[in-house]
């Protein structure tokens, strides 16, 4: 058979990292041996939020959802036997991106490469952290400055680097519609490019280069035809913006370059094998159009909603990409949608919607003011609430979750046990030991001088990168670097967006019933029922907490919700001062056991041991048993999609803890 000419496939990655630099390094080398063509590093939450492994806020989180990188020693181990001058590495890092990039450069230098040779990506979109991803540290102003500094530094010194990946991915994961994804990602890109221009760090004649280095990180949901059109809309809009707003002449510099992780929000805990179909269909959205094809793809695993994937789960996801790229004929054709009127009509509609929403952002003063006033976040929470209501009504069908629920036992998930990756419980202790050993052998005078220099640079407008690279070589830690900037820039908490107005169509019978029970129980107890929704730890997954809070208000509860990243002490303090009837914790980062334990201790100290506590989130079955035995009143996971049932439960839990007869008689 004659060999047809095929396009080069996209970069294939798996988002991974856990426990320690050593363990993750082994994983990366195995993955590369399996045909993966680039690396995608997942960092743990302390690293992403700028805390050392021994910080009180890091307890329970070290090495859980990613690799802990505390200093240049860890970074060297992470890339041992992986020549950085020949690798393409994507790092999902934002608030501390300048620091992790500095460590990467420093390690490459120690391996004998120069910055010019490096290729890869730092996510470095701190704007969407305020809206969805939650690993922000500093206020918006300084965050924009950090993004800008990385862009300006890399354009000059690491020309093949993608300094920022403007993300719409996380917006869809927080409920955004395709139009919102387009509008907010492009508004963010404009904010960033304007800031670079204004910083004066780049000569006007080099500005085209900057525009050409901006890349995007996009989502693809299950409505794959519309998603396919969304990618085409991105391409058209970016071409227009870069031409009209920034006057970019070179067509190549106007190209919409993007990487993808497909939708995970729609992946279910119930009948998890169905996730495989979903993932494959979603992958089509970003690969079918040659003119709007992804440059890099990473796929979630079938057990996404159960917990962290094991190497085999990730291998399966990688194989999906390989089958599409190497077995099918996809890469043999030109653009198969060019000339389709149906597709173009949808693309045009998306473009129109996006331009209107971008104009509204501008009316709000641009992306930053629209974040500070809570405008954008409220739009996202509203969209997500609509999605949840549609699932509740059955208008949005999710197979295995709200329809076709009957199933034979699955051989993939054995009874009473979770089919997920378990991180070695000793990882945290060992990481702290390594940190202490590292600190003991470094030159303290050099560290102090590098930190003093960093602080001085942070206070002026000078680029942060050279000072940070100096810190990297000197042996500064992640916590130290971040703390210097915390001292100079301050910290920030964005609006939660849950103060949306709820439109009332005629409430369903079940909603009426819940409201009546909430009201009458409040009367029996003398005052309206109050709930505290708390997000302890470094976990940034706010969707569940937001939706529970919105729903609970809608059925008549008074709600206290203070946003993400609270300490157990802060939660206990709020519970006491606000006189709540119930505390609902939401934890998706895997540190629920440690955090529940600490919160019980704090509640005990505050004399609140009798307030019922419930826990929701990603809780493996065996941990659910532990939590219940420790006194947690109930545990909810993604399979408990029916919010009305949850609300009825909450009323009964409050009733029982106050000596009232519950409404429902639960079978024991």
């Amino acid at each position, binding site marked *: 058979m004659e060999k047809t000419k095929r396009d080069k496939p996209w970069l294939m990655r798996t988002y991974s990292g856990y426990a320690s630099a050593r363990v993750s390094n082994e994983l990366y080398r195995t993955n590369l041996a399996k045909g993966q063509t680039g690396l995608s590093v997942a960092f743990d939450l302390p690293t992403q939020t700028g805390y050392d492994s021994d910080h009180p806020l890091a307890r329970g989180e070290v090495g859980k959802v990613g690799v802990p990188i505390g200093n240049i020693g860890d970074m060297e181990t992470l890339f041992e036997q992986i020549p950085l001058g020949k690798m393409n590495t994507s790092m999902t890092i934002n608030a501390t991106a300048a620091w992790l990039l500095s460590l990467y450069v420093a390690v490459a230098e120690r391996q004998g490469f120069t910055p010019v040779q490096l290729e890869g990506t730092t996510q470095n979109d701190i704007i969407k952290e305020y809206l969805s991803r939650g690993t922000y540290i500093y206020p918006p102003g300084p965050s924009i400055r950090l993004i800008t500094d990385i862009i300006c530094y890399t354009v000059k010194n690491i020309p093949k680097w993608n300094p920022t990946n403007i993300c719409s991915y996380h917006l869809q994961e927080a409920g955004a519609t395709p139009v919102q994804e387009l509008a907010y990602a492009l508004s963010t890109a404009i904010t960033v490019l304007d800031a670079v221009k204004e910083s004066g760090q780049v000569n006007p004649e080099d500005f085209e280069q900057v525009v050409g280095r901006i890349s995007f990180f996009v989502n693809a949901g299950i409505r794959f035809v519309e998603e396919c059109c969304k990618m085409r809309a991105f391409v058209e809009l970016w071409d227009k913006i870069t031409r009209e707003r920034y006057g970019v002449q070179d067509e190549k510099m106007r190209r919409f370059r993007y990487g993808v992780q497909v939708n995970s929000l729609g992946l279910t805990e119930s009948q998890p094998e169905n996730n495989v179909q979903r993932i494959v269909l979603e992958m089509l959205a970003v690969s079918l159009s040659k003119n709007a094809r992804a440059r890099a793809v990473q796929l979630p695993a079938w057990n996404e909603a159960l917990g962290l994937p094991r190497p085999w789960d990730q291998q399966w996801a990688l194989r999906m990409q390989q089958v599409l790229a190497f077995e099918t004929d996809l890469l043999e054709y030109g653009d198969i949608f060019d000339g389709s009127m149906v597709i173009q009509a949808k693309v045009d509609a998306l473009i129109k919607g996006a331009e209107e929403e971008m104009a509204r952002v501008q009316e709000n003063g641009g992306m930053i003011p629209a974040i500070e006033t809570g405008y954008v976040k409220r739009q996202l929470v509203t969209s997500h609430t609509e999605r949840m209501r549609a699932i509740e009504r059955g208008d949005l069908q999710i197979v295995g979750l709200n329809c076709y629920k009957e199933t034979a036992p699955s051989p993939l998930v054995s009874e009473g046990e979770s089919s997920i990756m378990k991180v070695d419980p000793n990882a945290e202790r060992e990481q702290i030991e390594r940190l202490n050993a590292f600190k003991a052998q470094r030159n303290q005078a050099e560290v102090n001088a590098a930190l003093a220099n960093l602080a001085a640079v942070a206070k002026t407008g000078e680029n942060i990168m050279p000072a940070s690279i100096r810190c990297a070589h000197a042996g500064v830690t992640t916590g130290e670097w971040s703390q210097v900037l915390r001292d100079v820039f301050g910290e920030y908490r964005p*609006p939660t967006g849950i103060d949306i107005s709820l439109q009332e169509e005629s409430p369903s019978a079940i909603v009426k019933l819940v409201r009546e029970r909430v009201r009458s129980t409040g009367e029996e107890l003398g*005052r309206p029922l109050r709930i505290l929704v708390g997000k302890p730890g470094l976990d940034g997954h706010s969707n569940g907490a937001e939706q529970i809070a919105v729903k609970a208000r809608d059925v*008549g509860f008074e709600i206290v919700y203070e946003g993400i990243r609270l300490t157990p002490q802060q939660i206990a303090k709020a519970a006491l001062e*606000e006189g709540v009837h119930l505390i609902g914790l939401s934890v998706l980062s895997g540190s629920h056991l440690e955090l529940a334990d600490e919160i019980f201790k704090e509640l005990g100290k505050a004399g609140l041991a009798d307030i019922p506590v419930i826990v929701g989130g990603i809780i493996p079955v065996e941990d659910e048993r532990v939590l219940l035995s420790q006194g947690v009143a109930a545990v909810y996971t993604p399979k408990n999609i029916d919010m009305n049932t949850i609300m009825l439960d909450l009323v009964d839990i409050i009733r029982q803890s106050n000596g009232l007869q519950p409404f429902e008689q639960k079978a024991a």
Partner: protein
Amino acid sequence: MLARHALPDPEALAAAVAARDRAALARSLNLLDDKRPQARRAASRFLATLPGERLNTAGHLIGITGPPGAGKSSLTSALIEVWRRRQLAVGILAVDPSSPLSGGALLGDRLRMLAHDQGGSNVFIRSLACRGEFGGLSAEVWPMSLAMLAAFDIVLIETVGVGQKEIDISKMSDTTCFVAQPASGDSIQFLKAGIMEVPHILVVNKEDMGAAARKTLTELRTTLKKQIDPDGWQVPALSVSATTGSGIEKLADVIDSHRRWLTEHQLLATRRKRFQGEWILKRLREEFGRFGIEQLGGEPLLFESLTQRQGSPFDLYDSLRDQFLANWKRTT
């Protein structure tokens, strides 16, 4: 388990609150919120046991009002920071809107008020839903402010801020600050037209917005030239920024100077004694309308007698309520 639904002993609770026991204060606020008859009786005894001298002469009860989004909570956060540096114990009552559909509420001010809190703050915040009340307050605010006054140097009440005219808070606080939003002429119009009661201090927030804030301040100052409050206090207007912190120390000083002015003119205790009458009148008005007030002898007379009478506000209110209902039954 039992401890939770058994009512606390009111006398012991009052003593613990006066000793600044935070858990006791929290419990007393729950009690003051509790509408069950036996709880109301306990709450009455609790209020009667609080140190009366303190409630009449000590502490500073500050009201902060203004349109939604003007920055009341942010400003409170910035003030907390100043007061903490001055080593003052602070309690906050923050009122949020309730949903008219479900009665549910999102108590969201707390988040902003802790914006300056890096974990070390000891400020005590209780949020309240307005629960259908007009005037930006809820019925529970005033009794709760008494419990807080027994425990803290400064008690600040943030109102809902539903409309610029509603300034009920000035009837239940020593010092009322009105926070204006730059470039929104409404409050100025209301002031000029005399629809809005004059607050004690006018604050233009968001000074960092530049020209708009300066313009609003100038307009307010011109309007204010003619505004002196009934007691003779000349109302100051100043601009601040909760975000950058500019003007906040000054604002704290001005707030404090009004408190001093009240004591120097022997007005503090008289002012506070009026709160009870105002509170009961408002309850009666909301329940029975103007008709009810007339039935009970008319506003001036009623107010006069309420200010004179000793005893728990709950008892006074309940007895007037019974009196009205008895009259009404007889006439129908």
